[in-house]
Structure formats: C-alpha cells, structure tokens
C-alpha cells in the first residue's frame, strides 16, 4: 500500500518537473515582464508532492512497514521511535529521496523569494534546477527506489547499524544534505546567469542568501559529524582525514571561497567569472564527493552506501554536469579586466581565495592519488594524516594573519595606519606564546608559529569586537565572531594536540593502575539489558592524585542484537579545562580488558569555537535581513 502511494507521488513529482521545464521554456519567449502564474502553481504542487513522498517513507519507518524493502533492510520493531525516524535517511535510498526533497525545496524558495530579479534569469535557474531534479529522480526510480516492495512481507526487519544509532548522527545527514544539495541552486543560478547575461552585482545579490544558508548548514553538518566520531567511535580523535571527511571538506573550501568573493562582486562589481567558477564547482564537488563515497571507490565508515551500479549512474550524471557547465562557461564567459590595489580589501579576499583553493587542491590530491595509483598501476596505497598535516598546517599560519588584517583594509585603497597596531599585537602574541611554552612544555617551531598566528588572530578580533560595541557597527559582528572563533579553534586544537595524555594498558576487575598522577581502579562490572542491546558496563574509580579528587567513569561494551554488532562506548567526563576519556574493550579469551585512558585539554572549547564559526554565519543571515 505505502509502496504504491510513494511511487505514485514520485511519478507525480517527475511529471511536474517536466511540465515546469516545458512551460518555463515557453514563457522565456513571451515579452511579459512577469513569470507566468502557472509556473508558481506547478512548483507549489511539485514541492507538496515531494514532501508528501518523504513523509510517506517516514510513516513506513515509524510503523515498521516491512513490505518496503528499504524499511526491512534498515529498521527493526525494537528500535526507539527516534531512530526509526532517523533510519529514513540513514540509508542510501532514503537519503536520495531527502536529496530530491532539498533540490525541490530550494528550487521553490528561490523562485518565490527572488521576485525582484530578472525574469529570464529566474526562468533559466528554474529550468536548470529541474533538470537536476529530473536527473536525481531518474536515479531514484531506476536504481535506488526507497519504495520498492517485498513479498512475502517479513515479520521483522534487519535493523539499523548500531553506530548510526546516535543523536548526533541522526541529524548529521540532514544538515549536510541541506548544505551540499543547497549548493545546487546557485549552480543552476550560475548557469542561468551565463545564459541570460544577468551578471555582476545583481547576480551576487540574488544568490548571496542561498550561499550563506548552505555554508551554515555545511559547517554545522561537518562539526556534528566530527562530534559523533569523538563520542561514538571511541578513538578519542575528532578528525582523521578519512576520505569521506575529505569529501565533505572539498565543497566547504569552495563555498567558503565563494562566500568571500561574493562580497567583492557585490561591492565592487568585479570577479564575476571567478564567482561563477566557484558556484559551479561547489555543487560539482558535492556530487563528486557523493560519487566517491557511494560508488565504493573509497572505503570508509560510510560504505553502507557502496554499490558500483550506482557509481556508474552518478558518474554519468556528473560528467554531463561538468561538460555542460564547461561548455556554457567557455561560450558565454567574457574576459574581465581586473585592477586591484595591493592594499585593498579585495586583494585580501582574493588571497583568502587562493588559500582556499590551495587547501582544496591539497585535499583533492590526497583523496584522488590513491585512486589514480590503483587504476593506473594497480598499487594500493592510502594517504593519511601525515600528508595533510605537513602540507596544510604551515599554510594556516599566514592564512590566519591575513584573516585578521584583511577586513581592516578599506575597499579600493587603504593607508598604513594599522601597521603599528599589527606590530604591537604580534609582539603580544609572541609573549603569550612564550608564556605557554615556558610554563606548560615544549613544542616544535611550527607549533610556535601556529600558536602565535592563532593568538594574533584572537587578539585582533577581540579588539575589533570592542570597537563594535563602541561605534555600534553591528553588521560587522558575524564576521568578527566567525574569524575570532576560527582563531580559537586552531588555538584549542593546538593546545589539545600538544598537551593530551594517552595511556593504554590491560586491567582485570579489582586491579589498580597508576599513571601520570592518576590512579585507575577497575572496581566492578555490570550487565544491563536494554531495549535493543545488552551492555557490559565497567565501573572505574579514577582518582586525581594531585588534588585527591575521585570520580567514577563507566565505559560500556554494547552488544546489539539486530544486526549483531559490538560497539564500544567511551565514558567521557567533560570539564571546562579538559575531558577525561576512558574506553574499554574485551581481550579475547582472557579476563583482561584493554583500557584506553586519555586526558584531552580544552576539548569542549574545540566544539564551542567550531559551533561559533557556524553561529557567525547564522547571525549574518539574520542581521542582514533586519538591515534590508
């Protein structure tokens, strides 16, 4: 029953997309200044049916309707309601439906909110967006239909992968999809802009809100994924340069560059071609990432989605997108002349863009090199953190300096007034760094530079912040918060990296281990039955010998029944100054448990500063609205 309703709704969306493309193409030729009313109506129908189809699937998951293969494969009656709902997008087919939903929602919102802009431009955008929608609808119907039914109807489902049963991970995919798929709208808008000749300042204004929205969601999505890795995977790290993490970074670099150069286009009416390239590549990189992850070319935590036949479809679609984008760009793009003064804000923004491109290319090479080597020479390698750390970290130093100084330069041309301020603050940063170095321990020359640059950025932003409260230039606040938080993020990651404590040992119940001013006492162990898993809970007394402070930590080993899997839950005690992190895992055929104890300074501040970067973006959305 649900299967038929779902498929019918998807077909309706398909029909409406065709109709929208057709009527829009006809409407392009009319002389009227306004878009035909029917197009609005059709779009409204389209969005209604898409959202309904998604709700149909959610209902299937909530009611555990195992007549749908997708529900059967990814859900189970014993799962808590929250994870039943999250299961909807916790698999390839369901997430593809969510993908289509976001394409349609953005298409509709762009249509109704941009009514002040040129008609031809809006129609072309609508046409391109609906071509994208069609592409993904065909993919969904031909290869990955979430509404496929199964007969006879199974009594019980196979269950959702336990490591996905986590609140952070339940919201991680929707956030990322809004971020990544949201980019589609300015891919379409960029194509439309090339075709309709609606360029420059006005084009920048038409897409800037959408760029900001998708930037915020991408940033937030990446952070939530990282938080999940920290709490759930039990390794105590939060960024692993895993191919899938890298895939999410590529569009983020492009969109961050875009967000900045868009300001130049809006204020100075230059850099148009570059903005177009970034618009096009952001979405192309999103789809490339999806292709790499879902085709199974890369192996990682996200391999739930791997299937080569999907790969062929996404790759064909990707090729089509890239070539049409390239051809239209080469035919329509006109040469621009740039005349930038070296000491102007646009120069700094351009510098930001070069850094972003450098980071992007580095990550891209690190990701693609193993694939190339495998395909061309049959040698299998993996590129790990050392490569990324060596290439990227040194460049972060000048990047942060520019990030602090750049926004202080005026448009077009500026004077040398701020030179002494910079000198003074660098001196301050060096002194603070020396104090940390002297009191807390030694670290490498590069780390010194990183700390100095981060502290400089923080100090500079704090001064800016103070100025804002004096002269009430509120619109600068979001930018300062994001830049300040980036400085804080790098600073806290640096501290965390330098001063983390990590101990690894085996213990059995009743044993005590003393290490680095801590005494770890494995007191006892409990077994607890839960709704969908059985937990072995260790009870550890952790005594801080310096302050004579005792606390109890309870890491778990969880045995999930559907599907049968072991997961290790870390016990994490978060404090303002540091996290205590304890995991235990069983050693086969022995009474001993492998214990991993970590003390990670300022962990919570890493999350706070990362979230503040995103907050800056959201504030920009709200504040700019009020100004208009």
């Amino acid at each position: 029953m649900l299967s038929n309703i779902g498929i019918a709704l998807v077909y309706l969306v398909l029909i409406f997309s065709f109709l929208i493309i057709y009527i829009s193409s006809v409407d392009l030729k009319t002389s009227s200044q306004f878009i035909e009313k029917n197009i609005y109506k059709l779009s409204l129908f389209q969005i209604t049916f898409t959202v309904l189809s998604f709700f149909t699937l959610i209902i299937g998951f909530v009611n555990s309707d195992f007549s749908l293969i997708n529900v059967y494969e990814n859900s189970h009656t014993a799962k808590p309601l929250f994870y039943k709902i999250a299961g909807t997008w916790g698999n390839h087919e369901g997430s593809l439906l969510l993908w289509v939903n976001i394409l349609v929602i953005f298409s509709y919102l762009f249509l109704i909110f941009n009514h002040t802009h040129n008609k031809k431009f809006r129609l072309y955008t609508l046409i391109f967006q609906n071509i994208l929608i069609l592409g993904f609808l065909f993919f969904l119907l031909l290869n990955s239909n979430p509404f496929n039914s199964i007969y006879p109807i199974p009594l019980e489902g196979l269950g959702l992968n336990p490591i996905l049963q986590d609140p952070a991970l339940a919201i991680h995919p929707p956030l990322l999809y809004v971020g990544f798929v949201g980019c589609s709208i300015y891919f379409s808008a960029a194509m439309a802009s090339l075709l309709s000749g609606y360029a420059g300042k006005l084009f920048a204004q038409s897409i800037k809100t959408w760029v900001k929205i998708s930037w915020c969601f991408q940033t937030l999505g990446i952070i939530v994924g990282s938080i999940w890795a920290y709490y759930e995977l039990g390794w105590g790290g939060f960024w692993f340069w895993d191919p899938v993490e890298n895939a999410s970074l590529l569009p983020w670099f492009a969109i961050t560059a875009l967000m900045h150069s868009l300001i130049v286009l809006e204020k100075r009416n230059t850099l148009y071609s570059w903005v177009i390239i970034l618009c096009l590549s952001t979405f192309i990189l999103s789809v490339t990432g999806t292709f790499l992850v879902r085709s199974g070319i890369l192996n990682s935590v996200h391999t739930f989605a791997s299937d080569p036949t999907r790969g062929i479809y996404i790759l064909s679609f990707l090729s089509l997108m890239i070539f049409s984008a390239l051809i239209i760009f080469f035919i329509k793009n006109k040469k621009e002349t740039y005349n930038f003064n070296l000491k102007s804000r646009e120069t700094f923004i351009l510098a930001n863009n070069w850094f972003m491109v450098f980071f992007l290319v580095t990550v891209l090479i690190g990701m693609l090199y193993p694939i190339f080597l495998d395909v061309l020479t049959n040698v299998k390698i993996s590129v790990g953190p050392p490569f990324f750390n060596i290439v990227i970290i040194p460049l972060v130093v000048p990047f942060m300096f520019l990030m602090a100084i750049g926004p202080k330069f005026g448009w077009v041309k500026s004077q040398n007034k701020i030179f002494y301020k910079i000198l003074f603050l660098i001196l301050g940063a060096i002194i603070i760094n020396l104090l940390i170095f002297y009191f807390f321990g030694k670290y490498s020359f590069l780390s010194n530079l990183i700390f100095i640059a981060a502290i400089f950025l923080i100090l500079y932003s704090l001064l800016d912040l103070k100025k804002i409260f004096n002269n009430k230039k509120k619109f600068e606040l979001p930018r300062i918060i994001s830049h300040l938080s980036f400085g804080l993020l790098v600073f806290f990651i640096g501290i965390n990296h330098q001063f983390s404590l990590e101990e690894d040992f085996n213990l059995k119940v009743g044993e005590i281990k003393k290490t680095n001013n801590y005494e770890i006492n494995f007191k006892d162990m409990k077994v607890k039955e839960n709704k969908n898993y059985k937990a072995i809970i260790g009870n550890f007394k952790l005594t801080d010998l310096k302050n004579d402070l005792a606390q109890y930590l309870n890491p778990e080993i969880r045995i999930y029944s559907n599907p049968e899997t072991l997961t290790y839950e870390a016990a994490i005690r978060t404090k303002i100054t540091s996290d205590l992190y304890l995991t235990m895992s069983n050693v086969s055929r022995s009474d001993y448990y492998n214990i991993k104890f970590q003390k990670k300074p300022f962990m919570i501040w890493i999350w706070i500063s990362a979230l503040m970067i995103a907050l800056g973006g959201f504030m920009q959305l709200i504040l700019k609205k009020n100004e208009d």
Partner: protein
Amino acid sequence: MKINISKIIIFSFTIFLLSVFWLGLKINHNYDTKSLVGSKISKFYVTEINNENQYISEEDLKKNKYTLINFFASWCSPCRAEHRYLMSLSNQNKEIKIIGINFKDKKINANNFLKDLGNPYNFVGEDTDGKISISFGIYGIPESILVNNELTVIKKIIGPIDQVQFNDILKSIQ
C-alpha cells in the same frame, strides 16, 4: 567558442579524471595481496626504537635467508594474540629473522609490551607516524610480510598470525 590551449587542457584533464573514475569503478576494491606476493619490496630505512643511531635497510635483509617483517603496536589487541606464534617462530627456527615495525605507538608502551610478552624480534624498528608501514603497503595492523634473501615477498599475512598461518610460514621456509 574560440578554441585555445587552456581550454583544450581543461577539457582533456576533465576527460582524464572522469575516465579514471570510470576505470576505478571496474576494479576490485577488496584489498588484494596477491599482487604483492612475488614482487620485490622497495627500499626502506628504519631506526631502532631505543637507539636512533642503529638502523636497518633493505640491504641488511639480503644477509638473512628469510625475514619476517611484522607490523605491531601495543594498543592493538590482535597483536597480542599473534605474539606467541612469533615467539615460537623465533625460538624454533634459526633460519628466519624477525623484524618488528612498531606502528604508531609510544616507546614506553612498546617496550612494556615486549617486556610482558617476550621479544621475538631481532630488530625493532620505530614507525611513529606510520609512514614506513604505508610504504610497505600496510593497511592495518597486525600484518606480516615474509621476504627471502632476494627481497622477494613470499607471503603476506593480513591480520593476526594463527596456527594455520604459522604452519604455512614454516612450510614456505623449508
């Protein structure tokens, strides 16, 4: 559209990239060790874990009839499980030299590990950041590579050595 060199380069690069992806879809992604068996190991240079001045390279392996290069870490529990096979290998057979590469580990932990469980290695090399292991084509640990005096890989074991693998190793070096 005017055709110029930069456009041609961009187009050819795109086509190249997409065709690599296309080929990438067709190859087998299960990590396959067959291709490594029979090939020669590349040049390497590892320093001793407790003595930075002491090192070995591929030249040293030529002196041994057989060398088993074992990648291990104190934090890896399967490594503990396989350790007794390494111990008996080093006690039983004098033809084979065992080299341990300590993968992303801390010196103290590694030394304690060897103190607790015994040291089967003729040489323990240090690989703090995992780069050396990667150059050997190591995917995860434990892994072991059996090499003869011509530096040809005879056998590659992914995962812990168990009784079957242990017998296989003995058979290969007879």
